[in-house]
């Protein structure tokens, strides 16, 4: 922070003025629409209604009576937990492996970011093809190795479709986790690793007692960011399964999209949005708290 006495009121006004454009954009594009959607959750607003009609908690009552909604809660949970843990595990392992000196390491590191750069519809298209029931390479390999005798129609099987969307999203995000963990490993103190080795530590001990504590904060932030991102996931799932087969991959975002823009039940869609927001908020609080501490502490 600049010393206050060197700044006069005009300069503070300049500082404030700098934030005004972003503030206006924030209010118009994010805050007001969000607040309005929260309010819509207490209204009935259908394709045939001219105006929203206040109905209190009726949407929520209907929602909690609907087994389909409880199902989408569960589906969202499975998707977020599986995807986040697989991505974290793969990304961290990959970073540790690529941290070792080897020929072509720089190229591999750079090229590994490719999945993350591809448009997500491309990712969805690609993984639908890999998992294709009749001509997909996954089936070909499984049949070849004798693990299965009949091809599996992944995208029309409730478990198979979930596996398909989880692997597509994990594929897309593993590089990012790798990147951040690799960055965190740059500052791993040489002396601590060597000291541990002198004490007779093997690789697992080094990872467990030196590396993990060192990258703990990075991992924590990555996990929360991943979880928040996965809770918002729409494009890959919509493109691969549209939430099917039979709602087996209908996560909150798909549910809200369908209710809002296919069935035109905006009140119900918003009510789901409220519950969805609360779920994200619970996960986001520790992350935001660390951000807020930083904004105050600097």
């Amino acid at each position, binding site marked *: 922070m600049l010393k206050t006495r060197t700044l006069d009121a005009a300069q503070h006004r300049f500082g404030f003025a700098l934030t005004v454009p972003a503030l206006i954009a924030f209010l118009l594009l994010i805050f007001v629409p969000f607040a309005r959607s929260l309010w819509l959750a207490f209204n009935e607003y259908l394709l045939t209604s001219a105006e929203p009609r206040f109905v209190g908690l009726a949407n929520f009552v209907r929602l909690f009576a609907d087994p389909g909604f409880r199902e989408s809660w569960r589906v969202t949970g499975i998707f977020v937990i599986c995807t986040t843990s697989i991505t974290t595990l793969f990304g961290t392992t990959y970073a540790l492996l690529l941290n070792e000196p080897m020929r072509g390491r720089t190229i591999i590191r750079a090229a590994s970011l490719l999945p993350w750069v591809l448009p997500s519809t491309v990712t969805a298209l690609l993984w639908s093809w890999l998992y294709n029931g009749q001509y997909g390479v996954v089936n070909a390999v499984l049949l070849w190795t004798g693990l299965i005798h009949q091809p599996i129609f992944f995208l*029309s099987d409730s478990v198979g479709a979930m596996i398909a969307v989880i692997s597509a999203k994990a594929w897309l995000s593993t590089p990012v986790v790798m990147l951040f963990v690799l960055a965190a490993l740059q500052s791993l103190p040489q002396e601590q690793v060597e000291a541990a080795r002198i004490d007779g530590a093997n690789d697992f001990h080094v990872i467990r007692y030196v590396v993990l504590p060192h990258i703990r904060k990075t991992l924590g932030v990555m996990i929360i960011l991943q979880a928040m991102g996965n809770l918002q996931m729409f494009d890959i799932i919509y493109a691969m399964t549209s939430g*099917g087969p039979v709602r087996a991959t209908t996560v909150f975002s798909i549910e809200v999209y369908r209710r809002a823009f296919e069935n035109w039940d905006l009140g119900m869609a918003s009510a789901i949005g409220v519950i969805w927001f609360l779920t994200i908020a619970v996960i986001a609080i520790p992350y935001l708290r660390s951000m807020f501490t930083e904004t105050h502490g600097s």
Partner: protein
Amino acid sequence: MITTRLSRRDLLTLGAAAGAAHLGASGKVFATGQDDMVYVGWSHTEAGSKAYLEQVFDRFRAENKASKLETIGVPFAQVQTTLLLRKRSNQRTDVAQLQERWLSSFVAAGGMSDVDEIFGSQFVDKTYHPTALAMTKINGKRYALPWVAGSTGLVGNAKVMEEAGVKEAPRTIDAFVDALRKVKKAKPSSSPMGFSTKNPGLTQFESQLFFWTFGGSFFDASGGIVVDSEPNKQALTLLADLVKDGLILPGNDRFDLRRLFAQEQVAFYPDPPLARAFARAQSGQGTAYDKNVLPVAMPVLKAGNEAVSLQWGHLLGMLDYGGAMAAADGPSGRFVKMLSKPEVQIEYYKATGAFPSALAAIEALRDDAYLTGWLELSRTARPDELVSFANATELSTVIGEEVAAAMLGQKTPQDALTSMSDRLKAIGPRKS
């Protein structure tokens, strides 16, 4: 370090370029004048009918130099959402291609003109075939003109049948299942019966062929929900068994089935007469493939029963979205009339297999075997059970999802019907 050389001036240039591109790329620069019109549909994006319809649009443009025709192509599955988004966003839309079973939703949403008022009921009655016109009325008012008429029954692939030793189209359900088994034996990778399990709307639509064959239905005459019945259970059990035995491969949409049909991986699947156009396009053999595309009656439960079939058609709705004004002699009126001309409909039929709706065109095609074959099967066609409901889309999704759940083995047929019944009651069917 390429980027460090990016100066502020470069960024400004970039910004200006992006700004200019925005101005030039607004969706509203086109088709806003009185003499212009916007048409939204899906057939002109599809392989079977694209070439012919583009040609018709060009002809319209040539004959109506003063009007600008903007055609917007949307994939079938996105048409309803797109049209309703356009309505909500006040985007001009004059004429829309509609599936007959969507009509009540659109009427409920508002913005559909009464075509009798625009064209005069005398003209409408005189021009179109009564069966085709039957699809256009909601609560006694005519909200659309029929464009393509017909019915959905089964389409059979003569070549696949022959190779499997199936001599003639099976008449009963038992014979039908036998035929499917023969096909599966001859072609283990095939899906002898094609069925759309991926798209709930089509799953619901196609499943009616089976429910009706067993004497079941979703609703009774007064609109009550009668899903949970013995005939329905038998029908759904059959569908689930066909999947279990590999006679229906799951996970397909109508598009997949059409391609699989042309690749000779499907012996029978539900489709309207347009099927022939897709077989031509996707077999790569053009009209030479016509001999393999057979209209097949839906098999019956007991010999002597009447084969069921589904009323089906494409309609043309006259809309007032975004201030569009329909008039019989305005551009939208002329456009619709052009598509209704007997000679255009006959050409369209020859190019794609789309059945005409105009009386004169049907009359002129009396000698065509494919057409007469279909017409014979269409005699018993019934409308989709959902046509009269304002929230048909929502209901159709629920029915389709539960049917697919049973077919994919996620639920027993009984559980699926129970849950379908509960969910339909929770939504509440609304007549428009």
